[in-house]
C-alpha cells in the first residue's frame, strides 16, 4: 500500500500535486487585458521555447491549451510556476516576481477560454497571437 502511495504520488501531474491551500488563491489579474498582454510577452520570453509559441506543445513539453490547464484553479497554476517539475524537466520560476507569474497565468487563462470557445484550434491560435505585444497599438 505504501509503494502504491509512492507510485501514485509520482504519477500525478504537477497540477494535481498543488495543495488545497495553493489552489484556492485567486488570480489578481484575471480578466485584466493589460495583464494578459504582459503575460503574453512573458510567455514568449520564458515558456514558448518548450511549450510552443502558441502554447500547444512542441513534443518536449505538454500543451498549455488543454482541458486540464483550462480547468485548473489559478492557484494550482501558480503553484506549478513556483515549483516547476524538476523530474520532468520544467524548472522553477520562483525567480520571477509573483506579479509576473500571475500575468502569465492570466494569459494562459485567456488562451484556454478562447480555445474552448471555437472548434478550430489553428485559426484560433492565429487569433490568439494577435494578443501579443508586437500587435499592440
Amino acid at each position, binding site marked *: 500500500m505504501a509503494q502504491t502511495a509512492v507510485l501514485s504520488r509520482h504519477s500525478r501531474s504537477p497540477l494535481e500535486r498543488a495543495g488545497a491551500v495553493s489552489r484556492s488563491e485567486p488570480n489578481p489579474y484575471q480578466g485584466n487585458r493589460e495583464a494578459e498582454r504582459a503575460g503574453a510577452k512573458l510567455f514568449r*520570453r520564458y515558456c514558448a*521555447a518548450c511549450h510552443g509559441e502558441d502554447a500547444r506543445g512542441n513534443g518536449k513539453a505538454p500543451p498549455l491549451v488543454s482541458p486540464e490547464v483550462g480547468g485548473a484553479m489559478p492557484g494550482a497554476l501558480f503553484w506549478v510556476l513556483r515549483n516547476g517539475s524538476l523530474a520532468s524537466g520544467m524548472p522553477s520560476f520562483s525567480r520571477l516576481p*509573483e506579479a509576473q507569474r500571475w500575468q502569465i497565468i492570466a494569459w494562459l487563462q485567456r488562451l484556454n477560454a478562447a480555445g474552448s470557445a471555437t472548434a478550430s484550434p489553428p485559426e484560433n491560435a492565429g487569433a490568439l497571437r494577435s494578443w501579443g505585444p508586437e500587435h499592440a497599438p
Partner: protein
Amino acid sequence: MTVNLIRKFVFRPGTYAWALLLAAIPGVHAADGPYFVTYGHDMEEPGSLEISASQVAGHPDGGHRFVNALTEFEYGLKGWWTTEVYLHGQTTAHDSTVFTGYRWENRFRLLPREHWINPVLYVEFENVNGADRSLLEVVGFDGQEDFLESNAEGRGEKERELEAKLILGSHFRGWNISENFIAEKNLAHAPFEFGYAVGVSRPLASAARPERCRVCPENFQAGIELYGGLGTHEHFGSVADTAHYLAPVVAWQLPNGASLQISPAFGLTGSSVPFLLRFGVSYEVAQFGRVVSRMFR
C-alpha cells in the same frame, strides 16, 4: 587610482563592442541574476546552454593593473543538475597576457520543490595556475599580495583544487537572498580554506509592461553582494588578514535574450584589492541539447 581604472576599462569602446554585437543577435532570454560571485539556487533550464563572458579589473597596492577574463559555458543537464566549464585568462600591465586554466563545476538541487530556503550542493574541480586573477571566490587568506608576482612566476605554480559550496537561496516577495558557504582544498597540500558570499537583489519592477521595452524597470535587477575569506581550518574566522569585498550589482536583461551585468567592488580590508570592476555579458541558447541531437540523427 579608481578613476584611472574606470577610465581605462569602462570608457574603452572595445570593451563594449562585442557586448553590443551579442545584444543585437535575436535569441532567447538569459535567466541568471545579477551576482558575479554569489550563487543563487536557480538552476539552468534543462537542455539550455548559457554562454557568458566576464571580466574583472583591479589594481593591487604596489602591483600592476590587471584584467582577468572568464568564458563560461553553463548547461542544464537535468532540472536538478547544472554543469559548467570556465576558461580563465588574464592580462597584466607591464607584463603579459596568459591563459591561466579552467574549472569544471556541478550544482545539484537537493529538494524537488521550492521552499523558504532552498539548498543546492556545488562541487568544483579547479585547475589554474598562480597567475589567475579571477576572484570567483575569496577563501582562506587570499589577498592582494597574491597578485604582486609576475605572470612568469605565477604560471609556474599549479593549483589543482577541489571546492564545495553549500548554496542557500530564497525568493521572497520579489527579493532574492542567497548565501554561500565555501570550503576549498588544494590537492597538493594543506590546509582547508573557507570563505563566504552573500547576495541580496530584486528586479526594479514586479509586474511587466504589456508592450515590449528595452530600458524599463522590469528588465533591470539591482542588489548587493558581500564576499570574503574566513581563514583556514587551523586559523578560522580571522578578519584582519583576510580579504572582503562589498559590491553593488546591476543586471540588464535585453528582450532579445542577452543580459549585461556590472559591479564595482570595494575592498574592505588591508588584504583586499582596493577596487575591482566587474563586467559581464551572457546569452542563453534555449533547447541547445535538442538542436544538437537533431543534427546527429
